[in-house]
């Protein structure tokens, strides 16, 4: 039931930007989350993302609707990748197009903050020493 917001192929900045482009827009803002080569000092080789897929899809759709209501943005593209990603790969991408820059920038920030706060997606980091650990941001 992976819908339009959860993907198993690479998240491509240009594709997100193309989806939110319009001749009536003067601004496009984009955020990409990428896999870092270390976390809390430990060298990381990759991250495995999984989700409660139907609920994650619903929450992501809801966040996009909330951004529309809060900032008047109708062109929002949001994708989160699932599966195992290597260092440098894009895990999440948000693009927003709008006539003016402030709503586009505000909406991108809102969407990524809300996604991180409440969408049921989890990650397990793979370390250089072969171990793996679930990341718990509340710990």
């Amino acid at each position: 039931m992976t819908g339009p917001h959860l993907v198993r192929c690479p998240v491509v900045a240009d594709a997100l930007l193309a989806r939110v482009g319009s001749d009536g827009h003067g601004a496009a803002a984009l955020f990409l989350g990428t896999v870092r080569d270390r976390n809390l000092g430990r060298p990381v080789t990759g991250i495995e993302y999984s989700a409660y897929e139907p609920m994650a899809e619903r929450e992501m759709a809801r966040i996009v609707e909330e951004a529309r209501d809060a900032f008047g943005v109708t062109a929002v593209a949001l994708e989160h990748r699932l599966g195992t990603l290597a260092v440098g790969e894009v895990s999440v991408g948000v693009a927003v197009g709008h006539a003016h820059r402030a709503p586009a920038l505000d909406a991108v920030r809102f969407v990524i903050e809300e996604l991180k706060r409440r969408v049921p997606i989890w990650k397990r980091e793979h370390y250089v020493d072969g171990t793996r650990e679930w990341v718990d941001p509340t710990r």
Partner: protein
Amino acid sequence: MSASALEIDVLLFASFAEAFGSDRVRLSLPADATVATVIAGVQAASRALSDAPPLPATVRVAVNQAIAAPEQRVRAGDEVAIIPPVAGG
């Protein structure tokens, strides 16, 4: 198990799925079970596992794909899931 008991398959993800070695666990709950009862049931079941790693201290429960308050009743047919701390992005 009384005739009024609830049999609920609780969906598991991430560290919970790994600890249980499964993407769900069946709980037998009293007919008046709440979200808090579900959390207690999953925690009891996890203590019964021999080599389970420590589970996240903070868990929430989704009922029908929406986060539910501890006092919310759970009914037959509900889709119930344990939501460990999320870490998307």
